[in-house]
C-alpha cells in the first residue's frame, strides 16, 4: 500500500492493547511525549476477548488522571482498527498529529526546555 503517515509517530508494539497499563501511558508523558494514542483491534474482535475493552477503560482512567495532573486528557486517545485497515491507520496518525500540533508541546517538556535555556 506504501501509505504515508507523519514521521513524528513512534510505534511501540505490544502483544495486545490489554497489556497497556496506566503506568505505561503516564511514563510516556513523563518522558516527554506530546501525545499518545492506542491502536487496538476493533471492539468485539479481540483475540483475547476483552483486551481492547480493558485498554479503553484504562485510557479513560488515565485521561482523567492527566486532567488532574494538568497535562490534559485530550493528549491521549484510544482508536480501534483492524490489521487490514492501513488507510485508517494513516488517517488516525494524521488526525492525532494535527490534534497535538494544535495543543502544542507537552507542558513538562516545555518547562524543562525553559530550565535548560536558563542554565544555558
Amino acid at each position, binding site marked *: 500500500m506504501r501509505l504515508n503517515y507523519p514521521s513524528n509517530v513512534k510505534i511501540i508494539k505490544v502483544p495486545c492493547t490489554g497489556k497497556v*497499563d496506566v503506568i505505561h501511558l503516564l511514563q510516556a508523558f*513523563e518522558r516527554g511525549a506530546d501525545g499518545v494514542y492506542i491502536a487496538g483491534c476493533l471492539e468485539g474482535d479481540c483475540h483475547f476477548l476483552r483486551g481492547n475493552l480493558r485498554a479503553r477503560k484504562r485510557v479513560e482512567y488515565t485521561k482523567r*488522571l492527566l486532567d488532574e*495532573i494538568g497535562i490534559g486528557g485530550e493528549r491521549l486517545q484510544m482508536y480501534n482498527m483492524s490489521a487490514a485497515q492501513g488507510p485508517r491507520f494513516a488517517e488516525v496518525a494524521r488526525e492525532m498529529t494535527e490534534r497535538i500540533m494544535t495543543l502544542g508541546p507537552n507542558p*513538562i517538556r516545555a*518547562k524543562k526546555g525553559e530550565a535548560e535555556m536558563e542554565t544555558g
Partner: protein
Amino acid sequence: MIVAERKPLEQISSMIESNNKILIVGCGECVTVCSAGRKKEVEILASALNMVRSKEGKPVEIRQETLERQCDGEYLEQLRGFIGEYEVVISMACGAGVQFMAEKYKNSLVLPALNTKFIGVTEEQGVWSERCHACGDCKLHLTGGVCPIARCSKSLLNGPCGGSANGKCEISPDLVCGWQLIIERLSDLGQLEKYEEIIPINNWSTNRDGGPRKVVREDLRL
C-alpha cells in the same frame, strides 16, 4: 478488608508543595486488594507527582517502596535505613498504617495519600461495599448474617423503619433496605421466628463510645 480510595491529586501535591525529597510507601495488604495503595498505585502516584512538579518547574526526587503491610512494626523497620534521608513520607496505607509509621518514625513527617473508607468486601472486580462498622458486639447470629448496624442506614436493631419502601432505603433508590435483607435471609433460612424477638438497646460502649479500643491476649505476649 479495609477499603480506601486515593485522595485527589491536588490535595496530595499541596501537602508536599515545599518538599523536594519524597518517599512514597505502599502497603501490600487491604489497600492492595482494593487497588488503592498497592505497588502499582505507588508507581502511578510517583509518576503523577513527578509530572505535576516538573510542570511547575520544581522537579522532585521520589523513592518508591511497598511494604508487606504498614500495621506491623517488623515491616515498618525495613524503612529504618533510609527514611531519614527524605523530607516527607507519603503513606498509601489506611489510616492505621499512616499513624503507625508516624509513631515508629518520630522525626519523619508522614502524610496520608488515601482516604480510608470502610470495612467491606469485593462485590465484583472494581466494586467494593461496606459490611462492618466494627461496633465490637457482633449481632450477625440474630439477623441471619446481615448486619443491622452496617447495612441499615440508621443502624436500627429492630427494623425496618417507615422509610423502607419496595425493599429500598429512603436515602437512595439504589440502596437496598438492610432490614429487607435481614427478613429475606431469615425467611430463606426458615428462621423468621428470630425476627419476632426484640433486640435490646445496643451497648455502644463496645463501639467508639468507649474511646479508642484495644485487644490484649496475655497468652501471646512476649
